[in-house]
């Protein structure tokens, strides 16, 4: 199946919540295990996923989230502490289902050669420095990502 040229997947990761953090690293690490070339472009809120400090504090929002396993009315979700509560619950559910931690999956991506491209423009907007990002990231803009994505067999926006 795999001929001379490896298959390629390009992902745009634009969200910075805990629930949005998983799909890019799950698909990217799996694609790498399937011998694909993978790059993830972390832009806008997605930049948090490769931010050293902020990626340790990813949260799930209980507001406007009717798909949550235990949906709460928005008016309740607004109460201080509810975001922390929803995040705690999600982490607990994930753990009981033996799902790996986000950081672990992110490490597996880098280990298996997935390219992480941090959006330079987003960094300028939020005042994020290169040293604020985890080891192993590259910096680039739309053109840098598109050069890779141009030859992609799969392109995903998450």
């Amino acid at each position, binding site marked *: 199946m*795999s001929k001379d040229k490896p298959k390629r997947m390009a992902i745009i990761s634009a969200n910075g919540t805990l629930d949005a953090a998983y799909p890019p690293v799950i698909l990217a*690490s799996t694609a790498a295990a399937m011998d694909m070339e993978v790059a993830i472009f972390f832009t806008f809120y997605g930049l948090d996923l490769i931010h050293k400090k902020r990626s340790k504090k990813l949260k799930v929002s209980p507001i406007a989230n009717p798909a949550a396993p235990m949906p709460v009315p928005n008016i309740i979700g607004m109460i201080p502490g509810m975001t922390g509560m929803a995040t705690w619950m999600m982490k607990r559910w994930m753990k009981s289902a*033996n*799902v790996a931690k986000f950081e672990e999956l992110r490490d597996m991506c880098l280990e298996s050669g997935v390219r992480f491209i941090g959006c330079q423009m987003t960094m300028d907007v939020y005042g994020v420095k290169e040293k604020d990002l985890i080891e192993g990231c590259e910096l680039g803009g739309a053109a840098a990502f598109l050069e890779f994505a141009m030859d992609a067999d799969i392109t995903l926006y998450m």
Partner: protein
Amino acid sequence: MMTEVHSTLDARNLSCPMPVLKSKKALKAIEINQILEILATDPGSMADIPAWSRTTGQELISSEELGPKNFRFLVKRLK
């Protein structure tokens, strides 16, 4: 033909995508033509391990459901 297992990966109690990621690592650690045994409890692995071995050009010798949430695969490294 005798199927001699060279290495066993215990991927039990791991969820998607870990069984596939660990299988990849374990397969790299054995030689070409050797056989990797994978044990898993994730029901998704019944679809995932065969898909992974097909797309990466390895040979799936067998996939068995030994019981509820108890799966065993034999994959031969071809490349």
